[in-house]
C-alpha cells in the first residue's frame, strides 16, 4: 500500500523574537527558491509580540553592527526594520579605521516590532501560529514533529494594520493580534483532547529568555520571559528528557521613566548623525515611505540626554545590597555578563568610582517611555525610585516600568554544531539566547543561519557553515561550539582575528553571492547587491595610480574622489573601494596564512569516530573531543585541552577506521536508505 508523504517539506520555527523572525524569513526564502511548495510555520505564545525589543530599543554597535550588516547581506529583516523605524542613527568610531566602525540605531520600539511583523506578513504562505509548545516528537534520534497545547490557531495578518504600518506618521498597531486578526485551525495535524501534533522535517527553537523565565525585582518574583508576559514552562523539561544538558543564565534591564517627568534642560544632549547612514543596502529600494516623501530617515529623529549617578546613588545601592537578588542568593544563575553589568555590580566591582554615566533614550515617537540606559537593576522598587531620583534631571522622575533581572534556561552550546543543529537530535536547530548568547544582533545572526540550515535539511540539501575568516557569524558559531561560555556571549570586534577583512562595507561582497546560490537571498537583496557591485566597478575604473597611492595615507579625504572632473560617484561605493584598498595588504597576508591552514581547518571529523576508541590519544583530549564533538580538525584544534599531537593521532585513526568502514560500505548505504526522509499518513 502506498502512503502519501506529508504534503510538503515543513519547517517549524518556535519563537518570534529576533532569532525566530530571521529564521522564519530565511527558511521561507530557501523553500521558495527551491521551487517547492514548502511550508514554514512560526509558533509563538503571543504573535502580537513578534519582533519585540525586550531591553534597549537599539540595534547595532561595535561588532554588533557588523552582524546586522551580515544578516542584511543574507537577505535578513533586521537592517531593513532598523532603517524603517530608527529615531537616532549613529556610526560609532567614525574617527577610527573603517574596519572597526559600527553603525548603531535607536528605534521606535513599537514601530520596530510592527515592521518585523509587516515583513513577515509579506511572506506569502508563512503561517503564524499562536500556541504553546509542549514537547517534541523524536524517532531514532531525528525530529519528526512538535507538540502544541490544544487551542493553537493560525493567525492571519490584519490588512488594516499592514496598511497603517506603511505610513510613518501614524502610530503602528500589531499586524498579528489575537482578537483582531482572523484565525483558523492549524492543518496537517493530529490532535487529541489536550494536544496537537504538528509533523515537520526540521525545527528551529528560539526560546530567548522564556524557558522557565523568572523575573526578579527585589524580593518579588514572577514567571515570564519579559515584563507582562508568560514563560514557556514545558520546553525545558522536554529538552532535558531528550538528554540535553541545560544551564541557567541571567540578564537584566533598567527602569523606564516618563518623559515629561524629567527635566531635560540642564542635560547634555546627543544627536543623530547628519545625514544618517542606513544599515541596509535595500533601504532606498524597498522601504515604505510616506506619499511624496521619499527620504531617509523615515521617522523624525530624537535627541538623547546624558545624566549620571552620584556618590549618593552608590551609597544607597551599597546600603541595600542585601536586598539585591543577585547578592542575596535568590537568583540561581552564577553570574551576569561582565560587559553589561547591573548598577549594583558596577558599584561592587568598581568601588572607587563615585559616578557612572547614564543615557536617557526615548523609546519612540508615540510613547512617553524613556529607557534609562546604564542602571540595569533588580533592586527593590523603593530603592530603584530613590536611585533614579539622585540623578540630575530625574529628581521628579516617574517610573513607568521597574527594572528587573531575568533568569532563564539555556542549552550549553557544546551540544550544537556550527550549523545550529543539535548533536543529539538531528533536524532540531537552536538559535539565539538558548545557545547562551545575548543581544538582538547575535540572535538574528544565528536565526538566519538556523533557518537557512533547517530549510536546507528539509529539502535534503547540504548544510551551510560560515568560516571565521568569512563572517562574524562564523566567528560566533565557532566560538560557541569550541568554548565553554562563563557568561552570556556578546560580539566584540576583538573576537574576530580577521577583523580587518570582516567589515561593514564588504558584508555583501563576502556573503551575498553564497546566500543567493544557496537560496537564502531574495530578489530585492540580490538586486541591491548587484547595483552596489556596478557602482564599485565604476569607482575602481576611475582610480588612477596616483590616487591608489594617496589612498594609503590615513589623512586621505574621501570626498576628493566622490566628485572629480565633473563625474559624480556613489559615496558609499567610493568608501567601500577605498577601504578595501587600504586594508588589502593586511587582508592578503591573513588570507595567505589561512590558505596554508585551510586543508587542516576544513578536514572533517565524521560523527561516527569515537575518540575513546583511538589508541594513544590522551585522556583529557578524549574527554574534550567527546564533549564538543568538533566537526572539523580546525574546530578540534581550537578546543582547550587538545594539542597538535592529538590531532595527528586522530588523523591516523580516522584513516584506519575509514579503511575498515569501506568494507562495510554496502551495509552503510542500506542503513542510510532506511533512515531516508520519512513516509507518513
Amino acid at each position: 500500500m502506498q502512503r502519501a508523504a506529508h504534503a510538503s517539506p515543513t519547517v517549524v520555527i518556535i519563537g518570534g523574537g529576533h532569532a525566530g523572525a530571521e529564521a522564519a524569513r530565511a527558511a521561507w526564502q530557501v523553500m521558495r527558491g527551491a521551487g517547492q511548495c514548502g511550508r514554514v510555520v512560526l509558533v509563538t505564545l503571543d504573535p502580537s509580540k513578534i519582533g519585540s525589543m525586550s531591553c534597549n530599543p537599539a540595534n547595532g554597535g561595535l561588532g554588533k553592527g557588523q552582524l546586522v550588516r551580515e544578516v542584511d547581506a543574507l537577505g535578513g529583516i533586521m537592517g531593513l526594520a532598523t532603517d524603517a523605524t530608527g529615531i537616532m542613527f549613529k556610526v560609532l568610531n567614525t574617527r577610527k579605521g573603517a574596519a572597526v566602525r559600527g553603525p548603531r540605531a535607536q528605534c521606535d520600539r513599537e514601530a520596530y516590532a510592527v515592521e518585523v511583523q509587516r515583513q513577515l506578513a509579506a511572506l506569502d504562505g508563512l503561517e503564524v501560529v499562536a500556541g504553546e509548545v509542549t514537547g517534541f516528537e523524536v524517532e531514532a534520534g531525528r525530529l519528526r514533529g512538535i507538540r502544541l497545547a490544544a487551542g493553537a490557531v493560525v493567525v492571519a495578518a490584519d490588512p488594516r494594520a499592514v496598511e497603517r504600518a506603511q505610513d510613518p506618521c501614524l502610530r503602528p498597531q500589531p499586524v498579528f493580534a489575537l482578537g483582531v486578526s482572523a484565525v483558523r485551525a492549524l492543518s496537517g495535524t493530529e490532535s487529541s483532547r489536550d494536544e496537537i501534533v504538528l509533523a515537520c522535517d526540521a525545527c528551529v527553537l528560539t526560546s530567548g529568555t522564556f524557558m522557565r523565565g523568572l523575573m526578579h525585582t527585589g524580593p518579588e518574583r514572577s514567571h515570564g520571559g519579559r515584563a507582562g508576559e508568560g514563560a514557556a514552562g514545558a520546553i525545558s523539561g522536554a529538552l532535558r528528557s531528550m538528554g540535553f544538558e541545560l544551564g541557567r543564565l541571567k540578564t537584566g534591564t533598567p527602569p523606564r521613566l516618563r518623559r515629561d517627568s524629567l527635566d531635560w534642560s540642564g542635560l547634555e544632549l546627543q544627536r543623530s548623525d547628519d545625514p544618517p547612514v542606513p544599515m541596509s543596502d535595500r533601504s532606498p529600494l524597498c522601504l515604505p515611505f510616506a506619499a511624496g516623501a521619499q527620504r531617509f530617515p523615515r521617522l523624525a529623529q530624537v535627541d538623547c540626554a546624558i545624566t549620571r549617578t552620584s556618590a549618593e546613588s552608590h551609597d544607597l545601592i551599597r546600603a541595600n545590597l542585601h536586598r539585591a537578588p543577585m547578592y542575596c542568593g535568590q537568583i540561581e544563575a552564577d553570574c551576569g555578563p561582565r560587559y553589561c553589568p547591573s548598577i549594583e555590580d558596577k558599584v561592587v566591582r568598581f568601588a572607587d568610582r563615585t559616578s557612572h554615566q547614564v543615557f536617557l533614550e526615548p523609546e519612540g515617537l508615540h510613547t512617553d517611555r524613556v529607557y534609562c540606559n546604564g542602571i540595569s537593576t533588580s533592586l527593590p522598587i523603593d530603592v530603584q525610585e530613590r536611585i533614579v531620583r539622585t540623578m540630575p534631571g530625574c529628581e521628579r522622575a516617574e517610573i513607568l516600568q521597574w527594572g528587573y533581572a531575568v533568569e532563564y534556561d539555556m542549552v550549553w552550546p557544546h551540544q550544537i554544531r556550527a550549523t545550529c543543529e543539535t548533536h543529539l537530535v538531528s533536524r532540531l536547530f537552536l538559535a539565539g539566547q538558548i545557545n547562551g548568547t545575548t543581544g538582538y544582533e547575535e540572535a538574528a545572526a544565528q536565526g538566519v543561519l538556523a533557518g537557512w540550515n533547517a530549510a536546507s535539511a528539509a529539502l535534503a540539501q547540504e548544510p551551510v557553515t560560515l568560516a571565521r575568516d568569512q563572517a562574524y557569524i562564523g566567528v560566533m558559531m565557532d566560538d560557541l561550539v569550541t568554548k565553554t561560555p562563563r557568561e552570556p556571549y556578546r560580539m566584540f570586534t576583538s573576537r574576530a582575528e580577521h577583523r580587518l577583512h570582516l567589515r561593514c562595507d564588504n558584508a555583501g561582497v563576502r556573503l551575498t553571492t553564497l546566500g543567493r546560490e544557496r537560496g537564502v537571498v531574495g530578489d530585492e537583496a540580490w538586486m541591491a547587491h548587484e547595483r552596489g557591485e556596478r557602482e564599485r566597478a565604476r569607482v575602481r575604473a576611475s582610480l588612477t595610480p596616483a590616487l591608489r597611492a594617496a589612498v594609503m595615507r590615513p589623512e586621505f579625504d574621501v570626498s576628493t574622489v566622490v566628485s572629480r572632473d565633473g563625474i559624480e560617484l556613489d559615496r558609499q561605493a567610493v568608501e567601500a573601494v577605498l577601504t578595501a584598498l587600504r586594508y588589502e595588504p593586511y587582508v592578503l597576508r591573513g588570507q595567505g596564512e589561512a590558505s596554508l591552514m585551510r586543508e587542516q581547518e576544513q578536514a572533517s571529523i565524521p560523527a561516527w569516530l569515537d575518540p575513546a576508541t583511538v589508541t594513544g590519544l590522551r585522556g583529557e583530549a578524549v574527554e574534550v573531543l567527546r564533549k564538543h564533538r568538533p566537526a572539523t580538525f580546525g574546530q578540534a584544534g581550537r578546543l582547550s585541552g587538545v594539542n597538535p599531537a592529538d590531532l595527528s593521532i586522530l588523523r591516523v585513526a580516522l584513516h584506519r577506521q575509514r579503511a575498515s568502514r569501506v568494507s562495510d560500505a554496502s551495509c552503510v548505504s542500506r542503513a542510510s536508505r532506511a533512515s531516508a526522509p520519512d513516509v507518513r499518513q
Partner: protein
Amino acid sequence: MHGIADTIAAISGDAAGVRCVVRVSGSAACEVASRMGMGGDIARAGAPPGRGVRPTTLHLPGRGSLRTLAVWLPASNSATGEDTVEFLVPGGVASAVLEALCGCGARPAEAGEFSMRAFLNGRLSLEEAEGVAATISAVDDDGLRAARRLREGRLGRLCDGWQRDILSMLALVEAGIDFTDEEDVVPIAAGDLRERCDALGLQLEAAAEGCHTKEVVTGAPRVVLCGTPNAGKSTLFNALLGRRRAVEADVAGTTRDALVERWRVRGAAGSLIECELVDLPGVPGDGDPFRNPVRAVIEREIKGATVILACARGGSAAAADGTRPGRVISVVTCADLGIIDGEDGVEQPAVAAIRVSAKTGEGLDTLCVTVAASLARWQGSHAAVVSRARHLRAIQVAIQSVEDAQRALSTDIRAIHQPELVAEGLRRALDALGSVSGRLTGDDVLGEVFSRFCVGK
C-alpha cells in the same frame, strides 16, 4: 595548530653525534634551500629526475659559512612524498643550520610531522602510521617536558614578561576600539603606546641577538642523581664523571646544592651522548635548618630531569617517582657492601635495580648503557633543539609584528587613528610569543579589558 601545507625542517639522526642530516620538506623546500646557498639548478627541469647531490656552501647568519653536501629529492622520489632537501652537516652545527632554515621560510617540524606527511602522501602504510602515532604520543610528553623546562628558563621568563606587556597594551587599544562609547575607557595616549612599543622592540631585538651568539637555553638532557642522604650519590657522581668533582664523605648531608657537570655517556654500541649529570643533596630531615631551600632545589631538578637515577644504599628503598617508567632508573649504590635485606623494614623495589659500586666499578657500564638508551629515546624528539629554533622564529615574528604596530602609530601625534592596525601588529606579536610561553587568546584580552574598565551600560 599548524598547517600541513607549510614547508617544515628538522634534524634527523643524532644531533650530538659526528654527522647528522637536516631535512627540509614541503612545496617550498627548493626555495628555502636556495636561500641558504644551494645552487638552484639542482632542482631545475633537466636535472636528473632522481636524486641530485651537490656540494653546497651554506650561509649561517652570525656564524659564517659551512661547506657541505645537499641532496635533492623531488616529491616523486622522497620519503615524505613532498619535495625534500637534505643537508649533511656536522652534529655540532645542526641546530644552527636548522635555525637558519627557519629564517629562510621553513618552520620547525612538530613531533612526528614528517611521518604524518609521509602517511598522508601514501608513503607509509596504516600499520606503520599507527606505530608513528604511538611514538608521537610518547614523544609529545618529552616535548611538553622540554617546553616546560624552557619556559622556566630565562628566555621563557622573558617571553612571559613580554606577553604580559603586550596583553596590557592590547587591552588598552582594544578597549579604545570596542568600548569607545563608555566614559570609563580612556584609550591609551599615542605617545605612551609608542614609547612602550619602542622599549619592547629593543628588548626583543636584544634577545634575538643573544639567540644567535650564545646558548640561551641549554638543550642538553639532564640526568639527575637523587635519593636519601648519604646514599652515595656524590661518590657515584664522581665515578661516572671519572674525576673527583664532588666532595665525598660518609656523612649524611655532605652535599647541600645541585652540582651540574657535562657528561658524555657511552651507550651500547660505543655511541656517546652528551648530557648533564646533576648531583643532588639527599632529602633533608625535618630538623635540618636548610630543609626548605634544599627541598626546593631537589623539586626543581627532578621536574626538569630527563632521566632520574634513584639511588639507595644497599637494600633501602629508592625514593623514585615511579610515574613514568623509563624515566626513573633505580640504582643500588655501594654494592660492595653486600645486600642488607629487610633493614628498617623496607622492602626491595619490585623492579630490579641496577647494582653499582664506585669502589669496584661493578655495574657502572650497565648503568651507562641503560641511561644512554633512555637518553636516546629522549633525543629522538630533539625537543630542546626544535624548541630553540622555534624560540628564535617566534621572537623574529614578534619583532616584525611590533614594527608593524609602530608603523601604524607613526603618523599619530595625539590620538590613535588606526587602532585596528596597531592591534593587528600587537596581536600577531602576542600569538608569536604564545608559541613559546603558552597561547593567550582574544578571551584573555577581553578579560584584561573587563578587569580594568567598568564597561557596559
